[in-house]
């Protein structure tokens, strides 16, 4: 599935999105672990959240086909 990337995540992914296979049915916590495995640099961030369909996802939420997924590194607006 495609996962959009912003901020430092865009640099880690090398572009505005990345693709991870076989994540439908995974929980958000599992997705985060898979991201760190595929892109170890994500493990070097202070933290990162996952947005699912334009809202923060909870660790236990399950990814479904068609979800809009986005990696949210620590925000720094204002």
């Amino acid at each position, binding site marked *: 599935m495609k996962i*959009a990337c*912003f*901020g*430092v995540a*865009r*640099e880690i992914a090398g572009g505005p999105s990345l693709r991870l296979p076989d994540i439908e049915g995974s929980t958000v916590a599992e997705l985060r672990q898979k991201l760190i495995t595929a892109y170890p640099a994500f493990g*070097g*961030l*202070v933290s990162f959240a996952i*947005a699912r369909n*334009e*809202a*923060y996802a909870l660790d236990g939420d399950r990814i479904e086909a068609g979800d809009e997924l*986005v990696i*949210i*590194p*620590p*925000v*720094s*607006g*204002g």
Partner: protein
Amino acid sequence: MIDIALRATPLDLTECSQFVSHPSCGGLCFFVGTIRDLNLGQTVTHLEFDTYDVMALKEMHKIAETAREQFGLHAVALHHRKGELTIGEVAVIVAVSSVHRAPAFAGCEFVIDELKKTVPIWKKEFRADGSHWLAARP
């Protein structure tokens, strides 16, 4: 009343003030966040905001709505810049109005504190010694 904006063009304090002003309100409080020339002792040349627009607008709206309810505000305007900014430019304006002044101060501070915690906007700072996404790494 709530007015949310995420713009590539300069923000306007007068516009925000006009939006929140109301004959029933005796107190308006504003916070204006600008780009400083120094951060952590390093000279900053300019910066760039990356924004997840649709979610940022939703989160900004949630914060404004929560502030209105929690502090009994009449109106909240929350405007944020996107794209590239130079030193001294306005990155964010929070404007709130209420009948009395104490909730105006508390509500305005709440909005900017929450914005910095939850709104998906990222600041890349360009300094003499390179560029950095703020808050990203320990």
